[in-house]
């Protein structure tokens, strides 16, 4: 049972959230000329044994998208920030 400290709602059980994977990538402009950048964003993600920066949405709470830094081996959560504040690669 992970406990996630939602910046808006406080610490809640992970069951209130939905997991959406890697959050390290920036999203390019939508145009077709950025095809290769989109390939990199969608398909090339780090897969660390260690701290992983990932999206969770508080779907059963405030509906805000968050970025969680979680250790993929111990599941220790280092930080939780609103998604807009994430740092990208």
């Amino acid at each position, binding site marked *: *049972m992970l406990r996630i400290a939602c910046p808006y709602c406080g610490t809640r059980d992970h069951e209130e959230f939905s997991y959406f994977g890697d959050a390290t990538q920036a999203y390019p402009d*939508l145009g077709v000329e950025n095809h290769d950048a*989109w390939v990199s964003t969608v398909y090339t993600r780090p897969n660390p044994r260690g701290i992983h920066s990932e*999206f969770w*949405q508080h779907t059963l709470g405030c509906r805000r*998208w968050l970025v969680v830094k979680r250790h993929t081996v*111990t599941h220790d959560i280092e930080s939780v920030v609103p*998604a807009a504040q994430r740092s990208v690669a």
Partner: protein
Amino acid sequence: MNAPHTAQGGKQRIASGGRIDRSKPLTFTLDGSPFQGFAGDTLASTLLAHNVHLVGRSFKYHRPRGILGSGVEEPNALFTLGDGGTREPNIAATTTELEQGLRARTQNAWPSVSLDFMAINSLLSPVFVAGFYYKTFMGPTRKAWMLYEHFIRKAAGLGASVADFDIHRYDYHNDYVDVLVIGSGAAGLAAALQAARAGADVMLVEQDFELGGALLNCPAASAQAQCLAHMLQEIKATGRVRLFTRSSAFGIYDGNTVGVIERSAPGIADPDFGVPRQRMRTVRAKAIVMACGAIERPLVFGGNDKPAVMLSSAVGAYVNRYAVAPGRRALFCVNNDAAYADAMSLAQSGAQVQLVDLRPTTAPALLTAANSVGITVHHGSAITQVSGFQRANTVRIEGFDSNTGRVMGGAAHHEVDLVAMSGGWTPTVHLTSHRNVKPVYRSDIACFVPGAFDRAQFGAGSMVGEQTWDGAIASGWTAGAQAAGVLSLHSSGDAPTLQDGFGMAFVPAGPLRSDQSGGKLFVDFQHDVTVDDVELAHREGYVSVEHLKRYTTLGMGTDQGKTSNLNGMGVMATARGLDVSLAGTTTFRPPYTPAALGALAGRNVRGHFQPERLTAMHDWHLAHGGVKMEAGYWLRTLWYRTHGATLSEAYKAEMEFVREAVGIADTSTLGKIDVQGPDAAEFLDRVYVNGYSKLAIGKARYGFMLREDGIVMDDGTTTRISETQFFMTTTTAQAAKVMSHLEFLLQVVWPELRVTVASVTDQWAAMSIAGPRTREVLQAAFPHLDFADASLPFMGLLDTHGNGPLEGVALRILRLTFSGELAYEIFVPTHHGLAVWEHLMAAGKPWQLRPYGLEALGSLRIEKGHVVGSEMDGRTTLGDMGAGRMASQTKDFWGKALSHSPHLQKPDRPSLVGLEAVDPAQPPSNGSILFFADDAIQGHGRGHVTSTTFSKTVGKAIALGLLQGGTAHVGQEVVAASPATGRQYRLRVVEPCFIDPQGVRYRV
């Protein structure tokens, strides 16, 4: 099994002492025979009080079995309790509190445990070795497995599973605590006391019905008993410790979360009043102390599985805690000092006791103490054989050299009525194993201890290898302080002390085999695994501990190897010539002891298994013959019994009246999202492949949205309500995903856009009215509104209100069609949904308006070639759907870049076609693989069938599918082959629209 019912509670009952309450006699029945005991007894102690040892038959060989232990480690004494809706198989008699009127039954024996016909398996035992099934049912006899399996299933297993509904209630509870202490033995109580004194809020869980752990098994006048009473008093005085008995910590999970199942005391549970039988507690602790104790190991000698062969500590427990002497002429065989206390307790109750010590000497003080209560001690000796019919009565002792571990011969025989054995103690490391921590071997105590503890988790007592009372208390004290330290709480003060007079000298012991040993030496009692089985596994190459476990089933029973793992691993290590520390260990997983599924389900059973989402017209459908179907959490009406006796009849009838007259369907489950803001139009332009910013107010547009990788995510119709407000619909299945997607785009990708989105799925009821007579019905229902084609054209919106009986009811009426007929979607606020539906039904009577269900709705759209999730299955592109031209060339949208990836643009991708049945006349099964006429029917084929139905209008079975080359193959025959059923269908490829391709019917 018929033992006398005596007022004293059994002829083996000791006249005084024990922790039972002799003022409260209680009786239970076993196989119909009554046995009287007292409050504080278990079923096992009650049976032993009446000199009953034979309680079951073993798993494979159906050998007679007796009570081995006194706690959770019990492998043999498993009963079925209760009847019907309360029946529970495989319950250990050693941990079941005696309760008035409890009905228990022995298992795995027919007609009775004393006369069991299946014991014939014992004669076949040379064949039933490890790997028997695997070796026998191979090759030419493999087909015979299906026949043998029928009989094997009847003979296999211990208890029989239950088919009745469990009538009991189970509850759940969430606990948030500073410190959780698991175990109430000396170490656990010390930890709880120390943590509480430091100021922590402590929860202590104990699986037994009394607190004290092994302290409960010491004589009443002992220092241990006094220490227990003292510590409990001190703990209660802190006012900071919540004590839970009958509460098993069955598993430990991420985030310092522990699963505990709390059982109610006898007589409390009441299914009629909803008083739960068990409560599942999810405990989230800031720090955890594990004081789970240790379990005594059996010794391995011939006949060690016979009834009246017991663990030494169990004998001590029965004497001191339950005032029961399991025998009066006992022989103990031990390899350590601690077991002497058990022998002395039994001797002091009046029994004749001999003790055989594997070691060459005993500490003088201990020897003197033993002799002083009349125990004869034989050194350097071991039991090599126990014999007796259905109960141990003769023991063979031979010389033993503990330096070499070899039996030296020189046999002597003794007559006994009880054998007690102690091979040392195995720490209960299970909870650390749940955290994937491998145990480490300590050669000084010849056992495995936990390798490490997670942060904020600590171990104490015999679980971490402490072998003395004092050591256990001191380690508990330290662990409690460390746990409090996690919360930055500190205490000082000294731990209680408890001196015992004995040391802990000990010598490891492997199988005690002599040249004269015949018969079986058991390692795993519950699964009938012998030393021979382990050595066979080694000979056949199954030497890894993981293979050993699965090949022999060692440790795979309900006891999870509590008395067998280490002995089995020891035999394998010896066979491999390895030190046991290098042989490896298997991983224990939750639950530590069996957990009732009811406790894990809690209240989420039957109708509460998952939420039910009902539309506003739900009851109306049921009252009018609607047959429901689950669509996610929604209950949707699939068909109506008023239209046919079967689904197949009804949907065809419903399709017919929709195409020829008028029908109405409940479409409330579709996702609906309100999109508002100054940038709402711009936002929708980026979300959809087609344009919305130029959509006129009061107009709707059908659109697709893509995933980031260019694959189609969903389709829907979005209507412009005002300059800055749009009303979006999605499919039922994708509503939640689309909502999250929109929120993602607005919060993460384009936070600068001024748009808010709100899910309004539950706020609007929706109904789809369709058919040539629709306009007449609507005009009759809403005479104040104008439904003429010019006033409400195709894809137009009427955003208005009802009048008369529906005065003030908001109505959003969209003219769009899914069925291909003239049709309108009517959205009303949910609380008015039923009223509007009934109003329409009444207004539609002259034109025979009838309701139609999901099956008909789905079939009507197949006739029109409208795609749904079967076509938009997460692998298909816009081009695959035949909708490539919908993608805007002048604006960018989410997914556009990757939709141009080479692999998504390949010309041979399967794309949407229509299919008509040629032969046979039935619809092809959904998912059938498509092949061209001259293809061999093998491999991945050319595509697959996505949706199928029977079309009366077309006059044959039809389908939609995805086919390589798509509509370039119109007119050609293809074959649909179903690998699941082996059937094949000949189909003709046609355009994916079977009715009115020009769209004349819905534009009138």
